[in-house]
C-alpha cells in the first residue's frame, strides 16, 4: 500500500514536469516529421516511417528514462523532502520500490502516447497496423524499464550528472556486449575471453530486446524467445532495484 502511494506520488510529480512534456511533444513532432522525409525517398515509405518512429520512441524514451531516473533519489535529498519521509514509518526499500514503480508508470504513459502516435501514423499510411509493431514498442518499453533501474542504482549514490553518464555508458555497453564476446572469441587470449564472457553475462543484454527488424519487415517472432526476454527483464530489473535498495539502506542521512 505504502509502495503504491509513493509510486502514485512519483508519477504525479513526474507528469507535472514541463521538460517531460517538451520531450514528448518533440518526439511526436519528429514522428510526424518522418512522413515529410519519405517524400524525398524512392519507395520503402512504410518501412521508413516504422523505422524512424521506433527509433524516435527509443531515443526519446531513453532521454525520459535517464532524465527522470537520475534525479529519483538525488532530488529528494537536495530538496530535503527525503528527511521528512524517512522519519515516517516507511521502510527504505518501500521508498525505492515506490519511486521506481512510479517512474515505470510515467514511462509506460509516455511510451504509450508515442506508440499510439506511431500506430496511428502507420494505420493511416498502410490502412492497417501489424501486431508485431505493438510488440516492438512493448520491448522498447521493457528496455527502458531496465535503463530506469540502472539510472536508479546510480542515483542512489551519485550526482545526477555522473548518473547520466554512467547510465548512458551502460546503455551503450548493453548493446555492444554480444559484439564484445564475439570480438574476444575471435581475437582475444584466454584471459580476454574470460573477461568478455563475464561482462557479457553481467552487463544488461539490451540487444535481445530489439524486435524492430521483425516489426518493420514482418519477420516471424519466436514466442519462446520473446517470453524469455520478458522474464529476463523482470529478473534483471529486480536485481538492480535490490542493488539500489542495498545502497540506499547503507546511506547515512543524519
Amino acid at each position: 500500500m505504502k509502495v503504491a502511494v509513493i509510486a502514485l506520488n512519483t508519477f504525479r510529480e513526474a507528469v507535472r514536469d514541463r521538460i517531460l512534456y517538451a520531450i514528448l511533444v518533440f518526439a511526436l513532432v519528429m514522428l510526424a516529421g518522418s512522413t515529410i522525409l519519405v517524400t524525398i525517398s524512392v519507395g520503402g515509405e512504410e518501412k521508413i516511417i516504422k523505422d524512424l518512429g521506433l527509433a524516435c520512441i527509443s531515443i526519446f524514451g531513453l532521454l525520459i528514462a535517464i532524465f527522470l531516473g537520475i534525479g529519483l533519489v538525488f532530488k529528494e535529498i537536495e530538496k530535503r523532502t527525503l528527511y521528512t519521509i524517512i522519519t515516517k514509518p516507511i521502510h527504505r526499500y518501500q521508498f525505492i520500490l515506490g519511486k521506481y514503480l512510479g517512474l515505470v508508470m510515467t514511462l509506460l504513459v509516455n511510451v504509450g502516447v508515442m506508440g499510439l502516435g506511431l500506430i496511428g501514423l502507420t494505420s493511416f499510411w498502410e490502412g492497417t497496423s501489424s501486431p508485431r509493431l505493438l510488440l516492438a514498442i512493448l520491448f522498447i518499453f521493457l528496455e527502458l524499464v531496465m535503463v530506469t533501474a540502472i539510472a536508479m542504482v546510480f542515483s542512489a549514490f551519485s550526482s545526477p550528472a555522473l548518473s547520466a553518464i554512467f547510465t548512458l555508458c551502460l546503455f551503450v555497453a548493453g548493446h555492444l556486449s554480444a559484439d564484445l564476446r564475439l570480438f574476444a572469441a575471435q581475437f582475444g587470449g584466454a584471459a580476454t575471453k574470460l573477461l568478455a564472457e563475464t561482462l557479457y553475462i553481467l552487463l544488461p543484454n539490451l540487444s535481445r530486446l530489439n524486435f524492430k527488424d521483425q516489426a518493420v519487415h514482418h519477420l516471424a517472432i519466436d514466442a519462446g524467445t520473446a517470453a524469455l526476454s520478458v522474464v529476463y527483464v523482470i529478473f534483471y530489473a529486480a536485481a538492480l532495484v535490490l542493488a539500489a535498495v542495498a545502497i540506499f539502506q547503507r546511506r547515512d542521512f543524519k
Partner: protein
Amino acid sequence: MCLLGSILLAALLERRGAGATVREEWLFLPEAARLKPLLLGFHGAAADLLWIQIVQYVGTHWQTDRTFPQLAKALNLATSLDPHFLEPYRFGGLYLLYLARQPQAAVSLLEKGAAAKPDRWELPHDLGRYYYLEAHDYARSLEWWERAAKLPGRPDYLPRFVARLYAKTGHEETALELWSEIYRTAQNDHVRSLALEEIERLQAAHSSRLTVNGPGRLPKSTVNRQPSPVNR
C-alpha cells in the same frame, strides 16, 4: 543586429557554396560489419537515412557530372546495414545498371538481395530481366525467371516469359508443357487465347521441322481444345 549579421553571413556562405562543383561525397564509407554494432540497434533507421542520401546523390550527380563513383559502395553499405530492405536492391540495381553503367555491380547487388530475401520474386525477376535485355544470356535469364515464377506474389506474366524462354532456348517440349499449364490455369480469356496461339505456333513450327527432319520429340499438347476466344 547580430541576427541580421548572421543571416547575411549565412546567405553569403550559401552563395559561395553554390558556385562550387559537385564535391565528392562519401570518400570514407565505413564497413557495415564495423558500423552496425555502433548503431546500437538503430541499423534499420540508419539504412533508411543512407538510402534517402543515396537517392539525393543519384539525383545530384545525374543533373551535374553524371558519374557515380561511390554509388555501388553506398548501396552495399545500406543493404548490409539492413539486408531485408528491398528498395536499395531494386532501385539501386536500376541506378547502377542504367545510370552508372556498372552492370557487374548491379548483378552483385541483385544477387546479394536474392540471397538475403529468397521469398521475394522481385529480385530474381530483375536479374532475369538484366540477363534477357542487357546480357542476352537467355539461359541465365530463364534460370532467374523460373525461380521468380515459383515465388508468391509474382506477376501473372512471369510464367509466360518462362514458357517463351524455353521455346527460345530450344526447349520446345518444356515450353509446350508450360503453355498448356498457362492455358489450363488462365484466369481470363486474353491469357487463354495468348497461350493457345503459342501452343499452335510451337506445334506448327514442330510440324514444319518434321517434314524436313523426320519425327521429333515434341508431344501433343495436353490442352483440351476449346474454341479460341479470339475466334469466338
